[in-house]
């Protein structure tokens, strides 16, 4: 046993998995993905609820399995299960599960538990191998208070001379159960925000070809929630909720019309340059609650891809921050990617939702290995 054993196991694993992902031809298929992550802050801060000054091997780590079965020529059943370290327990959860019907090449209908299709990588948010960052930019992607819903989605694609234009419309509802922590008489107290997103309606318009993807998204829903909390909410104990409600759950109504919109672009104008950018905004009862955006540039050089991200997050409550990230990815097999990343977070005003105890430039380092099989 020892490192030799680990290296051999990795090589065998890689060889067995090679090409499995999309080589099979059968009525029943499965595929999987794994991320083994490390992260820590370089000072006494808590970042994204869990990452602190001690090495954290849980927050970014996850294991997922997806199954699909062809029920007929046009009908398919699919489900994906994910066990995440951020849950502290690795208990598997249903990421999505739906029936998909494609009567022809242009039309697709889905029904079941669906990913909320608001962002560029919403559909494969948990598959670390498929995106450039050590973790998706929290300014946009940690708004995952609504990450999936129960309902239906229909999309229509139209072929243009230079690419494909698609329109997707969806509707449904989603339960809300968001745990966080509060400080009650000096004791950490578990708390939660529960309720539902009802009457969810949304649309996504996208254009794509082999080097460009542009998406514009809009959705609205009626939020009804109740708060179970004692004492004060701990900064950084639940980033998604903090961002949504701007640091104080009680400052905004717990029921109302909630609107989201986003725009995203992913382009590869040259072989040596990749650009990804997204903007996300939200409004509750016509009151803007957040504006967030990021821009990433990557430079593919053989098996390496250095990248740089600049991000900003602002709120009507007056808090906000800028975030800078430098990363380097390298392919360690045809189905595995090693990523290292440094981040600097510059909090402008207030504690902000991202961090506890921000002082000056807070630094976070991360490394993870991602594989698909």
């Amino acid at each position: 046993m020892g490192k030799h054993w680990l290296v051999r196991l990795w090589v065998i694993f890689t060889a067995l998995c090679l090409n499995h992902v999309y080589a099979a031809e059968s009525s029943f298929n499965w595929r999987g993905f794994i991320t083994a992550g490390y992260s820590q802050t370089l000072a006494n801060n808590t970042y994204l609820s869990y990452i602190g000054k001690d090495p954290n091997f849980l927050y970014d780590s996850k294991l997922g399995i997806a199954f699909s079965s062809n029920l007929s020529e046009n009908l398919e059943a699919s489900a994906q299960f994910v066990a995440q370290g951020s849950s502290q327990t690795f208990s598997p959860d249903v990421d999505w599960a739906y029936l998909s019907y494609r009567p022809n090449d242009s039309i697709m209908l889905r029904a079941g538990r669906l990913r909320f299709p608001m962002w560029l990588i919403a559909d494969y948010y948990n598959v670390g191998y498929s995106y450039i960052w050590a973790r998706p930019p929290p300014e946009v992607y940690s708004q995952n208070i609504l990450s999936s819903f129960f309902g239906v989605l229909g999309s229509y694609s139209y072929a243009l001379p230079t690419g494909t234009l698609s329109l997707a419309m969806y509707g449904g509802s989603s339960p809300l159960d968001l745990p966080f922590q509060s400080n009650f008489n000096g004791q950490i107290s578990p708390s939660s925000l529960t309720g539902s997103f009802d009457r969810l309606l949304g649309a996504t318009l996208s254009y794509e070809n082999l080097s460009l993807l542009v998406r514009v998204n809009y959705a609205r829903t009626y939020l009804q929630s109740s708060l179970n909390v004692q004492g004060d909410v701990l900064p950084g104990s639940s980033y998604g909720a903090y961002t949504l409600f701007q640091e104080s759950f009680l400052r905004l109504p717990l029921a109302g019309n909630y609107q989201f919109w986003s725009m995203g672009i992913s382009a590869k104008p040259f072989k040596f340059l990749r650009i990804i950018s997204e903007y996300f905004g939200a409004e509750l009862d016509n009151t803007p609650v957040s504006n967030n955006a990021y821009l990433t540039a990557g430079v593919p050089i053989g098996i390496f891809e250095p990248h740089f991200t600049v991000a900003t997050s602002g709120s009507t409550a007056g808090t906000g921050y800028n975030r800078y990230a430098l990363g380097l990815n390298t392919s360690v097999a045809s189905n595995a990617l090693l990523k290292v990343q440094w981040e600097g977070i510059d909090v402008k005003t207030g504690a902000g939702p991202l961090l506890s105890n921000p002082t000056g430039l807070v630094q976070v380092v991360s490394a993870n290995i991602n594989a698909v099989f």
Partner: protein
Amino acid sequence: MNNLFTLFCVALFLTAPAQAVGSDQVAVVVNVSNTLSELKQKELENIFMGRTSTFPNGEPAVPRDQASSGVKEAFYQTYFSLSLDEIHDFWIREVYRGGRKPPIFVDTSNDSAMKSWISQNRNGIGYLGKSTLDATVKEIQITDVKLLKK
């Protein structure tokens, strides 16, 4: 340290480009019973990227891929301006978002397997080295390709 070096060498080996084949040495082939004689580049792209399941004449189109070879590298570079890594990443994203389905691989990654499969499937479309062309399959011309070359 030695282990890290071994791992690095394995990674380099696995990601090394396949033996290069000239772009003018790749033939797009269909079954000999197929009435098509040419396809536009966009039509070929739509078939191989899973956007359509039919030829322009309405007949079903069933593409087949080679798992990894110099011919495959030349095919994707010539007609789609994509490296093998880029096409691999494209399909990873499609598969994991429950999107389009990639072409199935022929059993073994060589021209003989591709020829054998195409010759037995009247709706098949694939590619192979021009030097291995014979009467068991039919080559079709791909038009409007020059715009892609960078």
